[in-house]
């Protein structure tokens, strides 16, 4: 799946940029963190969220994950992707107060996050959960089948409580992929999403695209620029996720 998309992603993106450049300043300001359209053209099924938003009821979203959820690299949870998501959704759905609760804890495996579900997720009574998972498992070389089973258990539990789920896959950087083999974990995560009909937000593919197109440089970053880079990436990811969520709401 990923392989074929990457094959076509380049030409499509170039064509898209060429068209928007040709149309000139009449168009809206060019997106700083553009990605190939197929990365954000999914229509996830988020029925419970849609219902709440349509009825203009308050919406709680829990973002559970690791350091990239809590926004540690950027310096503050206010610069994290869940916060950006909250800001973006508040703008899009003014009739419904939207709260995104950030439950990111650095260096946690899938199993550790699953153990936190009762206190950190269910206690907040959310209608949607964004579960960012996999990096620590890949680093620690967790058994991939165990990882898949843990994810399946978590997603099942969420489904049983009528909570919509978005899975967020791993971060990409060229140097890390040299040493950490994410592939098995990526495939497992995507397959769990496929089996459970849960949308998988393709963070890995997006960051890889940005890295290859030199939109963001994830390697060789000077110390003083690091926090700013992380903040910008988190902002882009938050906006992209909001965009995808908008597509789910009819």
């Amino acid at each position, binding site marked *: *799946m*990923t*392989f*074929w998309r990457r*094959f076509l992603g380049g030409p499509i993106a170039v064509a898209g940029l060429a068209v928007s450049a040709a149309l000139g300043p009449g168009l809206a300001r060019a997106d700083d963190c553009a990605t190939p359209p197929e990365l954000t053209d999914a229509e996830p099924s988020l029925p419970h969220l849609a219902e709440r938003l349509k009825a203009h009821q308050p919406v709680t979203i829990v973002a559970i994950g*690791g*350091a*990239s959820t809590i926004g*540690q*690299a950027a310096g503050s949870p206010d610069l994290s992707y869940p916060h950006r998501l909250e800001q973006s959704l508040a703008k899009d759905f003014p009739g419904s107060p939207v709260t995104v609760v950030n439950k990111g804890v*650095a*260096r946690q*495996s899938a199993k550790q996050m699953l153990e936190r579900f009762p206190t950190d997720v269910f206690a907040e009574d959310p209608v949607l959960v964004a579960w960012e998972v996999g*990096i*620590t498992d890949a*680093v*620690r*070389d*967790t*058994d*991939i*089948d*165990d990882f*898949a*089973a843990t994810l399946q258990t978590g997603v099942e539990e969420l489904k049983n409580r009528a909570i919509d789920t978005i899975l967020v896959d791993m*971060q990409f*950087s*060229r*140097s*890390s*992929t*040299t*040493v*950490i*083999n*994410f*592939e098995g974990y990526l*495939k*497992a995560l995507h*397959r769990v999403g*496929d*089996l459970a009909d849960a949308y998988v937000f393709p963070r890995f593919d997006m960051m890889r695209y940005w890295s290859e197109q030199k939109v963001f440089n*994830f*390697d*060789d*970053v000077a*110390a003083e620029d*690091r*926090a700013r*880079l*992380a903040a910008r*990436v988190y902002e882009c990811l938050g906006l992209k996720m909001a965009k995808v969520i908008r597509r789910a709401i009819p």
Partner: protein
Amino acid sequence: MSRDLRLDFFRGVALICIFIDHIPENYLNYFTLSAIGFSDAAEVFIFISGFTAALVYGRALAARGALIATLQVWRRAWQLYVAHIFLFVIFIAEVSYTVRAFNNPMYNEEMGVGDFLERPHIAVVQAMLLQFQPTYLDILPLYIVLLLIFPAVLLGLRRNPLMALIPSALIYLAVQIFSVDLPAYPSGSVWTFNPLAWQFLFVLGAVLGHAETGARDRERVVQAAFWPALIIAGAALAIRLSWTFHGIWEAVPAIFLRELWPVSKGNLSPLRMVSFFALVMLVARWVSPQARFMRAVASRPVVLCGRHSLEIFCLSILLSALGHFLMSEISSGFAMQAAVNLVGVATMCLTAGLLDWYRAVQRMPVAPTAS
């Protein structure tokens, strides 16, 4: 003594598949042994290793007695251990090269630069104790442990195959039922290939390899198992293919994906065992020990790879690490992948040829020098 070419040939195939499978996002992944059923090259490698170990060391046991045979087995285990240390050094080199780039804000907090880099002294010791098994360094520790216990297996086999089989099967069942794991480093992780489970495959291979005298019994088993094996292998192929195609085109239904997946590789799930043995039965029936296609010139490189499996395995790990590195640094496009695959397999075959030539030359009698 005519050597059963199937052992070398299929071990060579397994080694090539292991090389290909170790390179992530390699389109050739679709064509390795993992694509035709639920088992993959690891089963082939371990099974054939058990088979040949019983063949070789069983003979030593009969000819030289228990002590000598045990020392021979443990000497081989030592060779594997040295190879493992060598691969670990390669791993350290590769990681050290990229360590500077790990000052990466996006990863720092998640990884702590990969715990092993923060505490290299602990990591090295843990690797020497076979406890630290990063990517690529997971099969050899298993093989080493299997050889360490092998003398006991051999002694049991000498009496009666069941003496080796029954304890082995019981341990395997214990793993399946109680999920018994072998802890590794860093704490919280386990052995990638659980020796408690994989020993069963090794012992089964040894039982079949040892039973050279029971050739007629084996014939009968192969005959009887043919139709079930064909059906099982066919079903496994169909199911696996549907999963593969479903990954490419979502419209294709993935048969039994929900019910069967994930199929545990670390603990050698029974599904993998059954799928694998179906293939073994079919090969035993359809491919004769000296089949023409294996004797062909084109097959010779594969046979040689299998014949020098330890050296070629180490080389394959080195090459796949290098290939992965090049694909990350330069490009992971189609052309690069093709180049990496081609050069990698060619290097393995050429090296195997070289090793074989050297061995043959070494064995030639030396002409007395004229005085």
